[in-house]
């Protein structure tokens, strides 16, 4: 589709091969571990084998005597620099290297710097640490027991493991609705701890130049600018002397938002040795110590009428935040955007209470493509709707259809205060049902049930709130969640766009070039996108929470429009008319009423650098800058339908189909959008069926490698079936809503609902993820496991 084919249609939007792929398919990407600097040393972290223990002594003498070791850093060394503890993204503190106690298995205890990576790891074995083991808090549901060991005794006066209580909605009103409701249902629902597990683990190369005083850090980070500011605050280094570079990143999924002790150690290592220091964690370190996700123990309740009108939803949540409260989320939202648990439905009332607790597990949280806890909220409400359908004996698709918000209700203010921008939910669900052949599937299911076969059909409908966010309400550690964009136009009409977000695989270099191309009527290939280097990009908070297109994409459109307006002024001088007499046709400024008289952006750009006498308002060049502070969030939605077969003998699940109809507003590059959905669907399948970070009673992590923490492969995934509806966001400059996490949010409930539906002949109403064969076998017998604990 081009502009000339259809009036007003965006010229540069449409499937376009990704620019970045030309290097990636040739293996020419440059990731952190690919960085090699002259004289570079290698770091390795010694970690705690215990979940909870007091450190009685650390002896580093043998490690220091290793001929290739250059430095051994402990918590004591860091304490001397006032760096043993660092602030977390939730205004808590976290140990960089443990000084007093270790509080989770895999916690950082010491850092070795050596000449090569093998020696650094060898030297770890030479460090003697004596621990006095303490009882561990493993089960979040016991964390507040009176006799529970106090994990954070480093904080003065702390006598329990309580972090916060948070409430939203209206308790009294909700209680009223529940009291007079014809039907109520309740269910305990666990969204167990999972891990983003990007294929590239975390790592950093730190290079401190003693002469210039400049620190350069290459890092696996989704938020380079925020990291620079934090280094300045934490280490007391002047911010203008810090450069953070996020080169090609091998997947992030939220796991690369925070600052990890390893990064700080690499920086300290470089300062101490005067040499560049590289640190790259291995997969076990990644799974055991970097930001986990979920770990929400929820109790959901729904009040409804007998004919299937959903009236109110009430939730109470116990949130396991691990040993340090390090969740990455806007300050005022300790439970993220869980407030959207009211789902896509028009309710009379809603109420929610969340309590956060410390346990002896890795810190972090909220990571993993969750749009700040929306994953948990959607899972809760979509599971509860199925529980209600079960109770009412009603078809779950029909029940949803009856309760979905109608198009005329937008903008819609939810019972918890979220303002949904736009949507056409019934049409979206109807399309998914049509693509799936829903009625035929139900007919097939009836037939097969009669033959004793277990076939299940699962439906989920979700609305996300993404694009954080309006700086008035949203900040992380005081930094408002806005993003900048600079657009530079070369005399020949080629453009360089500098953005504050950066790709971890989402294709920014292509999508953002298309946005500029669309605004300026130039080919996307003529736009170079610069990102990931704090020395050459404007400030902004980075890529996570599906915020790049909603925030930075908007900044890009706005800055391109500024360039276009400057071009108008220059064009007016070229054409010797008033700017008001010029009209934009998608590729040119032309004289109103005389379409032959017009100038393209390249022509105007050259003129802006030429000897042409420039009118007021343009001093030269067309370059512009902007910062985009989103007026509100955007609300992508999705209707997903999953079909499974369960083997009643083994409990094995065969995923037969997954239909996903997403509405992310305007699609800039539909090919990239579909790729995002494909990846997210696979993620969701993994969480629904095979992934969990569980712990045994001593606090040993049971998911610490890819031998135990299973990622689905192509063999476990069906060929995805996608559809789309488009309801542009009314307040976004190009109507886009964001799609990076949609499928990860929407697919787990669809898959779980399908499996539970398959188990209906056994009277099963709920079982917790992951629905492994062992869990299904036990569920059939009416005694499902606690999936967050070791199997007994």
């Amino acid at each position, binding site marked *: 589709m081009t502009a000339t084919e259809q009036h007003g249609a965006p010229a540069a939007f449409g499937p376009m091969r990704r620019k970045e792929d030309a290097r990636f*398919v040739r293996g020419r990407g440059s990731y952190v571990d690919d960085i090699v600097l002259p004289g570079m040393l290698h770091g390795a972290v010694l970690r705690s084998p215990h979940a909870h223990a007091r450190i009685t002594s650390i002896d580093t003498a043998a490690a220091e005597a290793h001929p290739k070791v250059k430095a051994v850093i402990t918590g004591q060394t860091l304490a001397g620099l006032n760096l043993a503890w660092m602030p977390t993204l939730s205004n808590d503190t976290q140990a960089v290297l443990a000084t007093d106690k270790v509080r989770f298995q895999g916690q950082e205890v010491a850092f070795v710097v050596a000449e090569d990576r093998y020696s650094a790891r060898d030297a770890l074995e030479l460090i003697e640490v004596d621990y006095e083991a303490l009882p561990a808090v493993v089960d979040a549901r016991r964390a507040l027991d009176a006799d529970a060991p106090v994990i954070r005794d480093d904080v003065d006066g702390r006598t329990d493991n309580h972090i916060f209580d948070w409430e939203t909605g209206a308790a009294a009103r909700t209680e009223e609705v529940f009291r007079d409701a014809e039907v109520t249902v309740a269910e305990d629902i666990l969204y167990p701890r999972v891990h983003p597990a990007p*294929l590239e683990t975390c790592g950093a190369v730190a290079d401190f130049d003693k002469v210039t005083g400049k620190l350069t850090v290459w890092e696996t980070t989704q938020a380079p600018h925020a990291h620079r500011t934090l280094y300045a605050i934490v280490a007391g280094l002047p911010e203008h002397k810090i450069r953070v570079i996020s080169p090609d990143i091998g997947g992030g999924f939220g796991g690369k938002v925070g600052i990890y002790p390893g990064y700080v150690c690499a920086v300290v290592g470089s300062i101490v040795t005067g040499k560049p220091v590289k640190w790259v964690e291995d997969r076990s370190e990644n799974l055991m110590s970097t930001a986990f996700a979920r770990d929400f123990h929820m109790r959901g309740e729904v009040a409804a009428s007998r004919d299937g009108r959903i009236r109110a939803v009430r939730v109470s949540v116990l949130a396991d935040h691990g040993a340090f409260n390090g969740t990455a989320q806007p300050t005022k939202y300790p439970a993220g955007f869980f407030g959207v648990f009211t789902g896509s439905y028009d309710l009379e009332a809603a109420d929610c209470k969340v309590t956060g607790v410390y346990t002896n597990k890795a810190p972090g949280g909220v990571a993993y493509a969750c749009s700040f806890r929306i994953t948990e909220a959607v899972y809760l409400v979509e599971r509860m709707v199925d529980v209600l359908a079960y109770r009412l004996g009603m078809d779950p698709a029909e029940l949803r259809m009856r309760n979905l918000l109608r198009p005329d209700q937008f903008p819609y203010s939810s019972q918890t205060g979220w303002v949904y921008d736009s949507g056409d939910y019934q049409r979206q669900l109807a399309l998914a049902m049509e693509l799936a052949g829903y009625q035929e599937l139900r007919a097939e299911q009836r037939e097969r049930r009669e033959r004793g076969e277990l076939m299940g059909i699962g439906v989920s409908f979700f609305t996300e709130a993404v694009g954080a966010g309006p700086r008035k309400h949203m900040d992380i550690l005081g930094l408002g969640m806005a993003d900048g964009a600079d657009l530079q136009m070369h005399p020949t009409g080629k453009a360089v766009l500098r953005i504050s977000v950066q790709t971890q695989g989402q294709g920014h270099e292509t999508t953002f070039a298309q946005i500029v191309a669309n605004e300026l009527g130039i080919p996307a290939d003529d736009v170079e996108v610069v990102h990931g280097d704090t020395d050459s990009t404007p400030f902004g908070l980075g890529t996570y929470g599906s915020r790049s297109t909603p925030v930075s994409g908007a900044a890009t459109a706005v800055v391109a429009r500024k360039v276009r307006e400057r071009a108008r002024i220059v064009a007016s001088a070229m054409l010797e008319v008033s700017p008001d007499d010029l009209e934009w046709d998608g590729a040119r400024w032309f004289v109103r009423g005389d379409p032959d008289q017009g100038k393209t952006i390249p022509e105007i750009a050259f003129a802006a650098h030429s000897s042409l006498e420039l009118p007021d308002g343009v001093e030269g060049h067309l370059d512009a800058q902007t910062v985009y502070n989103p007026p509100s969030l955007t609300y992508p939605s999705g209707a997903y339908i999953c079909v499974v077969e369960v083997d009643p*003998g083994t409990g094995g699940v065969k995923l037969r189909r997954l239909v996903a109809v997403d509405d992310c507003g305007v699609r800039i590059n539909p090919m990239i959008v579909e790729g*995002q959905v494909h*990846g997210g669907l696979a993620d969701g399948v993994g969480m629904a069926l095979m992934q969990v970070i569980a712990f045994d009673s001593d606090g040993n992590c*049971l998911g610490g490698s890819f031998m135990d923490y299973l990622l689905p492969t*192509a063999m476990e995934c069906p060929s995805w079936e996608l559809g789309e509806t488009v309801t542009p966001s009314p307040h976004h400059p190009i109507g886009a809503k964001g799609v990076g996490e949609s499928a990860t949010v929407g697919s787990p409930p669809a898959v779980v609902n399908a499996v539970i539906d398959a188990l209906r002949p056994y009277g099963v109403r709920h079982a917790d993820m992951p629905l492994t064969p062992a869990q299904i076998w036990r569920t059939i017998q009416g005694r499902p496991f606690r999936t967050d604990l070791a199997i007994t």
Partner: protein
Amino acid sequence: MKVQLAVNGSEVSADVEDRLLLVHFLRDVAGLTATNVGCDTTSCGACTVLLDGESVKSCTVLAAQAGGHEVTTVEGLASDGEMHPVQRAFHTRHALQCGFCTPGMVMAIVSLLRGEPAPHRGAGTRRPGRQPVPLHGLPQHRRGRPRRSAGAGPRGEGPGSVRVIPSSFTYRRADSAAEALDLAAEYGEDAKYLAGGHSLLPLMKLRLAAPGVLIDLGGLRDLSYITDHGPHIAIGALTRHHDIEHSELLGSQLPLLAHAAGQVGDPQVRHRGTIGGSVAHADPASDLPAVLLALDATLVASGPGGGREIPVAEFFRGFFETALEPGELLTEIRVPKPAPGSRGWSFQKFTQRAIDWAIVGVAVQGGNVALGNMGPVPLRAAAVEAALAGGAPPAEAAMHAADGTSPGLDIRASSGYREHLARVLVSRALAQATSGS
């Protein structure tokens, strides 16, 4: 030691540590950084390269093992800047996102399209970049510490502390069986044979094994064969799973073995792992030991005192323990051809993902029934066989499948679930074997 190999058509040679992994040789010595490490446990395939044209995981091959061979990385795939058709397909079909594991995926698919007759799903399947090319690691949780994952261990092998690289050792390559035996005699208890390395190297990378000397058997091509001896078929101990899977002779005479070999791990594992290594390693969850039990195979070993034959029923002694004496070399596996009337077979491997180890495995040949992962050693299901011999219908006999077993519990399954699976799978296997004979 000096290692020389041909990388993308150029000779690269360097003096390196004996323990250097091929992936680090490529990245740090040859400066070819396209090949990335994603998991460290042979699980993800991000590090896949071609070794003599076949896909292997370069994190689980020693640079020394690759010495004298040809290695191709994704950097060597495009000729004159022209993309290989697989690269082009990845580009045009948007089959990647972050690009980190893309080189491994591309190389795995290049190998698959060259080598395997019929890939189930190849380059044409659109899979965005996040999923690794399938494969799997060691069932670490079964290594005597059922409660612990690979992440946990006693002090010194603490979580994440050293699990990437083996501790130092001396590498020796044997050029003949006799030389292997001599080297074993020379180094004694401190030495271990290295065949495909796909059980031993993962253990060494976790530092759960730390032999001082590795005697590489990889050069013993004379121990890689499949020959017909009339009543039995002889298989050299160094024969790889891949060759067993694709052997026409085995496909027609011992289809159970050929089929089961094709179920081991993933293509990269099957390009390296050997039948001898699999048997000598004696992991009860392995596929081939149970199959060989069901087939009444005989194992041939040679040691300082000469050769001997060991019936497979006497071979597995305990968890990772066999009848082999220290230094004894497994040279051949002899498998009798099933008698007419016993030709029905079935292999039931229950896994969560296609590439995983069996949660429980069952091999049936005629009236012989063997179980994998139902105790510290692979077992014959004696009670089932007795019931069948006594005339019980298969479904009834299968109810005895867990009798006399002692399955462990781990993060995938409780003992009770394993017992249940054994009954279900034996019942299915018997039904299939009966219908097929």
